[in-house]
């Protein structure tokens, strides 16, 4: 998982190993320079019932992850935000 460090303008890596329940995953897909960019957050459950969570950098499935995707009638566009050094959705872009 990742945690966005606003000072370093990078994601700090949070390694989470071992079997976990995928409790909640939300996200969106927007376009940057014509290519889709996936932005996803996830909460996972440990064997003792506590949770860990963050921005998904990489998540390996075991045994299954069920995802529903709804396509919006208008695609959102991203632009590079120099303050955060991230691509952020700009609703004014077409």
């Amino acid at each position, binding site marked *: 998982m990742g945690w*966005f460090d606003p000072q370093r303008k990078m994601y700090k890596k949070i390694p989470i190993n071992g079997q976990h329940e995928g409790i909640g995953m939300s*996200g969106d897909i927007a376009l940057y320079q014509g290519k889709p960019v996936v932005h996803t957050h996830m909460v996972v459950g440990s064997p003792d019932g506590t949770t860990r969570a963050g921005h998904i950098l990489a998540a390996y499935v075991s045994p299954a992850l069920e995802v529903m995707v709804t396509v919006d009638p208008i695609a959102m566009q991203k632009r590079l935000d120099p303050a955060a050094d991230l691509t952020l959705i700009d609703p004014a872009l077409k």
Partner: protein
Amino acid sequence: MRYKQIEDEPKTFVLIFETSDEIASGLQQFARGQGLGGSSFEAIGALSHAKLGWFNWETKKYDPACVLDEQVELLSLIGDIALRDGEPQVHAHVVVGRSDGTAHGGHLVEARVRPTCELILTESPSHLQKKLDPKSGIALIQI
């Protein structure tokens, strides 16, 4: 906060909050401005400050469950908007992630954005009305 309507039926908006925007008051203001009667929304993003509440059944008030004056991932924000005495009322629940990967959750009291919050809001087909529930002392949706 900037927004774009992306669908007419049902009325659907994308709301993009920016650094230093506050989500709860921003949503309330948006709902009033658009004359929304009942809606549901969800969002992800990141925050520089979050105040989460926990409903205390004894006092019938929200206790401050967790005040985080630090950068957190906004892992999920789920909520609805209904009318109470003609005024839109925002009800939302939040899960946030700290830098060590631990998660905290509660009722949204205050959430200050940094650097973005991407929210999608859909208006409900019929107006959701809230009515004061004497048992809990809070306004709950009546259907």
